[in-house]
């Protein structure tokens, strides 16, 4: 008699070659239509990202943080959410934003410098982007504590990266979630690089193993496998909603592009690494799976490509049409209630500006 095999460290349900594999703890049963829908998400999200990078290169955006390579982690986890669940992103979660029906123009507005965000977090149950690394993990835990107090059937998911795991806030969030048994899923996209710093600068142990020290489960999932990301996140969210507390999901993936458009990754990483990860592309494997199973024909793929092109084109048009905000916008929304200093400075500056028009 042989001992049962331990589950593999990395949860994978779809290999890079597009083959379905089983995992003892995670299963997924998707219809052909659902798989096609995931494929469409992945392609459209990549297209939005590509267009944004191009817009930045052409001087239309001040900056862009590309999600290239992380589409499956974001779409898989994003599609695991129910409408009642709440997501707290970093500044790279364009794919999750897509899943939460946030108009990508909002994302471009932020990176163009028109505003600092501005979508309605409550309308989409998708919070504003957080630029201070790890700060949003505490907001997510607090929100989850609110869900507990409301007795609601919902959970919170919070996104952060491998670098963020070194932040005090993230570790505090783990502690709070643990001791309050908060319904939150910590979704760490380990894309291997925190700008120029590799994972070894953040941790001596695999990140998902950190969870055990805080007293909740941790799991590592193939972050380039949309099926596995969906299955693992669904299970973690269900556990949270059922009162079983937090889970740390480490989506093992790779940042195929630069940290942001201001970064030059050739200074700190080797091309071989990139080439190896190209073979694990999150979209190609779904395409191969759809082809192999005859779940989609060429017409479908052509249609998605055409839709992506149209989306990119339209997004570009709308981005270029974004008006610069009026100067008085500086003073708007700083406070919810009337504030004497805001009123004073606004009036003084507008009077000053009006002096040029005489």
């Amino acid at each position, binding site marked *: 008699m042989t001992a049962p095999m331990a589950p593999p460290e990395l949860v994978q349900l779809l290999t890079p070659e597009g083959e379905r594999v089983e995992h003892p703890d995670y299963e997924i049963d998707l219809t052909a239509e659902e798989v096609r829908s995931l494929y469409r998400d992945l392609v459209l999200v990549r297209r939005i990202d590509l267009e944004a990078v191009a817009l930045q290169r052409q001087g239309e955006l001040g900056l862009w943080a590309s999600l290239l390579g992380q589409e499956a982690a974001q779409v898989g986890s994003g599609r695991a959410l129910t409408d009642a669940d709440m997501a707290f992103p970093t500044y790279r979660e364009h794919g999750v934003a897509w899943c939460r029906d946030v108009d990508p123009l909002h994302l471009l507005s932020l990176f163009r410098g028109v505003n600092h965000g*501005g*979508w309605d977090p409550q309308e989409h149950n998708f919070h504003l982007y957080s630029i201070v690394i790890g700060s949003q993990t505490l907001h997510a835990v607090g929100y989850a504590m609110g869900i507990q107090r409301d007795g609601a059937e919902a959970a919170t998911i919070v996104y952060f990266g491998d670098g963020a795991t070194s932040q005090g*806030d993230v570790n*505090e969030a783990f502690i709070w979630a643990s001791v309050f048994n908060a319904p939150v899923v910590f979704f760490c996209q380990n894309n291997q690089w925190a700008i120029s710093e590799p994972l070894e600068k953040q941790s001596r142990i695999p990140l998902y193993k950190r969870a055990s020290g805080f007293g909740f489960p941790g799991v590592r999932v193939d972050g380039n496998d949309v099926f596995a990301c969906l299955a693992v996140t669904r299970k973690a969210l269900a556990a949270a909603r059922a009162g079983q507390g937090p889970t740390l999901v480490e989506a093992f993936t790779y940042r195929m592009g630069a940290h942001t458009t201001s970064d030059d990754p050739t200074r700190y990483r080797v091309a071989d690494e990139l080439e190896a990860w190209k073979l694990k592309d999150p979209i190609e494997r779904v395409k191969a799976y759809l082809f192999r199973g005859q779940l989609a024909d060429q017409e479908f793929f052509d249609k998605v490509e055409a839709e992506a092109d149209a989306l990119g084109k339209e997004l570009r048009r709308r981005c270029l049409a974004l008006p610069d905000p009026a100067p008085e916008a500086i003073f708007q*929304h700083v406070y*919810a209630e009337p504030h004497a*200093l805001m009123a004073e400075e606004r009036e003084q500056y507008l009077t000053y500006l009006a002096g040029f028009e005489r």
Partner: protein
Amino acid sequence: MTTLSLAKALNEGLRAAMETNPKVLVMGEDVGKLGGVFRVTDGLQKDFGEDRVIDTPLAESGIIGTAIGLAIRGYRPVCEIQFDGFVFPAADQIITQLAKMPLRSLGKLKLPVVVRIPCGGGIGAVEHHSESPEAYFTHTSGLRVVACSNPADAYTMIQDAVRCDDPVVFFEPKRRYWEKAEVELGAPGLALDKAKVVRQGDDVTLLAYGPMVKTCLEAAQAAAEDGRSVEVIDLRSLNPLDLPVLTASVNRTGRCVVVHEAPIFGGLGGELAARLTEACFYRLESPILRVGGFSTPYPPSRLEEHYLPDLDRVLDAVDRVLAY
């Protein structure tokens, strides 16, 4: 009317706020069973339960960060930072998140979070327990910053702070926690952003807030015995400033001294002096002087009486503005 200490007045104010609105929460280190190290939250957990009066882990950033999340979910958390010198681990959440998130949302999110901070010295404490960090927060747009100085104001101001849809940093003068005065329970107070003339006078205006209001009132009383008529204004709101009340007074007296415990350099007194000089330039009979802490770290407690402005240092400044 009932006689309450400042700490008890805050307690009654918090109780009233919690009774009025079930979304009001109290959270912080030791605020539950212990009732807070100054007993400001005494008995609240017993009456409102552990879900509404939350003993938190020892992590100040966590307190503010999770309060933000609760506020996004529709709650109105009142956070206690145990001592002034311990607010700095939370400074990032207060400055980069709490203060700026409403603007980030273009007004779609409101963050009605109150951050209560016992402040100031004079209690013989060890390091980090006697500081006056208000200028860090008055310098941060998006926050309202207020300081109560007496039980009656403490009672109404804490309720107004909880009702306010903006984040409010609420300073409590810890050495005045045990001082008692008449409080009219249930009565509304002066609006949160209003200053109050607490003693009328014609020769000099003293501007103070928090623990220094009482010191200034004592100085004004002593000055009166020398035939000098000193007006004392309790700022109450540090951001925004109630400039109409301040300028009206300084325009009338022509002389002004600002008093705070915080170091003078880069402190609120500088802002007040600059603004009042602009607004009252032709009426001023002397420069506006500042009395405050030295530009040193807060000293060991055996030296704090040298550091803290007291009646004599305030009177010295009054003499100097009158000598011009």
